[in-house]
């Protein structure tokens, strides 16, 4: 992040992509998009395209990594080579290793891991197109995929960033805002309880600014929570409808 002479907000308070300071980019979520995975979700968030798959609970390999008293949640965040303007070399880099680690830790909080000793619950997130905010998109999608997989959970995590650009506090930074802005705070939380499961911050904020940033991000998490629930509801009703149709078919016979 570097504050250059790029103008990110105009005199009317409108951002480069037309949003106001407290507006999210468009988000759409669909649960249950893959066949082989136990649970999955596809999420578009602005120009971010993210796919999440869940396998498990299943036996942990290698065995020495098993935890005898609970399941281990292993998230893997991966960017496709073509997901960024300059091709990314395939395979994990340090950034994705770190994101995978903090995602794993965040998700472990909501899963009832004690119910599955020695098991692993694997969450795979593929970023197919990236445009700022992929870790929040990934965490949001992973939560839905976990729910879709029927993993027992206390609640789901919603995630969104807020930050500072051109000296102003704004929600959900876009690509240029991320590159030229002054601070970015990705937040992951359980909206119903206010529990913070993921929190990072880079840049420069006073305490007062931090408070404004958090207010925006926490508010947005609640909205995203609703989108996640809606996606799961649609998924369940489809499953239900399929089931009912099957039942109907059976009756017809």
């Amino acid at each position, binding site marked *: 992040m570097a504050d250059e002479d790029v103008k990110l907000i105009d005199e009317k308070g409108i951002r480069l992509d037309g949003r106001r300071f407290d507006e999210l980019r468009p988000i759409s979520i669909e649960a249950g998009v893959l066949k082989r995975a136990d649970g999955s979700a596809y999420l578009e968030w602005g120009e971010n395209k993210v796919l999440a798959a869940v396998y498990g609970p299943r036996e942990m390999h290698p065995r020495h990594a098993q935890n005898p008293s609970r399941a281990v949640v292993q998230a893997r965040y991966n960017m496709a*080579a073509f997901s*960024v303007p300059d091709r990314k070399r395939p395979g994990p880099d340090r950034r994705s290793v770190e994101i995978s680690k903090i995602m794993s830790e965040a998700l472990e909080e909501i899963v009832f891991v004690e119910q599955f000793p020695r098991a692993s619950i694997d969450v795979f997130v593929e970023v197919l197109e990236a445009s700022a905010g992929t870790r929040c998109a990934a965490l949001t999608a992973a939560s839905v995929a976990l729910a879709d997989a029927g993993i027992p959970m206390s609640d789901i995590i919603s995630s969104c960033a807020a930050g500072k650009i051109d000296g102003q506090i704004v929600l959900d930074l876009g690509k240029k805002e991320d590159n030229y802005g002054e601070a970015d705070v990705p937040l992951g939380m359980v909206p119903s309880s206010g529990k913070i499961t993921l929190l990072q911050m880079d840049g420069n904020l006073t305490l007062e600014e931090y408070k404004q940033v958090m207010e925006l991000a926490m508010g947005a998490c609640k909205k995203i929570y609703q989108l996640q629930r809606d996606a799961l509801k649609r998924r369940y009703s489809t499953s239900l409808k399929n089931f009912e149709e099957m039942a109907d078919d059976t009756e017809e016979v």
Partner: protein
Amino acid sequence: MKELISSITKDYLYRLIKDGKRLDGRGLLEHRKLDIETGWIGTAEGSARVHLGDTDVIVGVKMSTGEPFPDTPDRGVMITSAELIPMASPTYEAGPPREDATELARVVDRGIREGKVIDMTKLCIKEGEEVWLAFLDMHILDFDGNLFDACGIAAMAALLDSTVPAETFGFGEDYPLPIDHVVIPTTFYKIKEQIMLDARLEEEMISDARLTVGTNEKGEIVSMQKGLSGVFDYQDTLFCIEKSKEIGDSIRALMKK
């Protein structure tokens, strides 16, 4: 880890196949529903997502510039890679590319390269110094068998969708990636003396031998790859080549739409 199949399913499949039937009611030489969606990824120069039944793959093309190989100073360079990401199957694990992924990437690569799909001479910027590099990356999202065809078709579609980003690199106007031929691979599986097209996962798992044939729009054969530890005889290969031309033509027609 290997994909596992129960002996009951195995026996059931064998009995079906003996009668020329398949799990999903298809004919032996019929492929699954094929869905090709291009232009999907904004950050890529070209992209295609292909659903072949429940097999789901995405191929993205990225381009940049670099030095040509010394023996082809006036030609662009294509680099193909495949990732069998663990999202796609409970048996895939993260890590260095497995030999399956290597074979897949190389077979798709050869189909395009030996089929002279791209006119590489039009990807030369300055002879011997700078040429276009085209990176073709294949991601398997959902694995239900026959990655060779799904990826080969997606790769072809992604290339047809691609634009050379000349402007971004300061070399004049963007232009479509120059495509000379449309190569379509078709993969045949031999199970208990029966030959079938486009196996689903369970069928693939009990296959004795596999033969991929790539043909172009003139009906010429441009690549073949036999796999697995079973065998074909010479007549089998002639049969597969004939069928490959037919099916290739119908898929080429589909791609033009």
